[in-house]
């Protein structure tokens, strides 16, 4: 815990002047805000540990205010708010397994699976026989995400997307 927020350590450097007090310089990521910053401590200083845990959970549904997840082993449910879900909202598909970071028993952040298979619900019509030509067009997927796809794809086509880069990876059969 640092300044009231749970943080994870990204890098550590041991600083020891030849004679004298040793220090430890750490780079930390604030798990609430995502911000990466640095702090130096005296070596041997204690910090409060944060009750943070990553759990694999299944996405169930969204009730308009919360996104509901279930731990497939314990069947326990958790609800994540807008803040916790963040950008992941546009990739969540029912039944998909996500990583939910729990802090003090509540969802702190949600990480969608690396790849997701979604359906195109809106896009400009493609031109038949356009498979060879390069270029792409925006397509809205059933979760609301907008992704650039090749020109030959139509409404109703199923596509696979990389959630980390929002890149179209290929067609898929659902």
């Amino acid at each position, binding site marked *: 815990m640092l300044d009231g927020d749970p943080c994870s350590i990204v890098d550590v450097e041991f600083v020891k002047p030849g004679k004298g007090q040793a220090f430890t310089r750490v780079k930390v990521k604030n798990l609430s805000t995502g911000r990466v910053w640095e702090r*130096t401590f005296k070596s041997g200083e204690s910090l409060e540990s944060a009750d943070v845990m990553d759990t694999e959970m299944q996405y169930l549904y969204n009730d308009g205010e919360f996104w509901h997840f279930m731990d497939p082993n314990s069947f326990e449910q958790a609800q994540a708010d807008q803040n916790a879900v963040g950008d992941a909202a546009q990739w969540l598909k029912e039944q998909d397994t996500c990583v939910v970071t729990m802090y003090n028993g509540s969802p702190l952040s949600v990480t969608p699976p690396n790849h997701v298979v979604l359906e195109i619900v809106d896009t400009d019509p493609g031109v038949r026989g356009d498979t060879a030509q390069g270029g792409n067009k925006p397509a809205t997927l059933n979760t609301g995400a907008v992704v650039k796809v090749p020109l030959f794809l139509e409404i109703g086509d199923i596509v696979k997307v990389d959630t980390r880069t929002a890149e179209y990876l290929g067609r898929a059969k659902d």
Partner: protein
Amino acid sequence: MKYIAERARLYRQIRDFFAARHVLEVDVPTVGRTAALDPNLEALQVVSGKQTYYLQTSPEYFHKRLLSAGYGSIYSLTRAYRQGEQGRLHNPEFAILEWYQVGFTMQDLIDETLSLLDGIKPDLSITQNSYAELFEEHLGINPHQVSTAEVNHLVEKHTSYRGELSLDSALELLFSQAVEPRLPTGIQVVTHYPSGQAAMARRIEDACGYSVALRFEIYLEGVELANGYEELTDPDEQRNRFEQ
């Protein structure tokens, strides 16, 4: 393989250097019944039977016994051990070269160290400054005169440490985080440390009347390579320091 061969060559160079100068190589224990009296050093412990022994954090105490017994100028190329020192530039077990020259002044010792380094890596540019000069240049303060409050303010400005530090800890952290990265390329010799960072060195009054220690350090490309002193030989003062 290349590094192993280079290390062997380095060891040979060091031994030739001291042999030519008639400095005697001595083999001192790395395990002892006591540990060094430095609040910032922690010794590793070993247990043999019912007795706890300490791995030596440096050969210093054994060397000083030999010096007191009249062995003259001596050196050891050996291992030292420290608890809690691990990082890019630190390992709990490390090789240390420690030597003593009877009758040398601090500058004599600096010159000798530079000579040793020159034999190993010639043609490096060499800069020598006092501790105060470097603080003036890079942080605009006189480290012998600055208040604890002011130096803590600089710690907040130049480092990511948050909290109150003692004057010497603050100066040490500032030196490491704000001065070291700005040292010129090549070799940098730093002399005349504040008295509070003097350990067992002789203290004198400098030209401005500040109490400074005859202690120096040698940096190469911002990495601390060596630490040296003109040693305290007054037994009463030594007792005082131990008691402190």
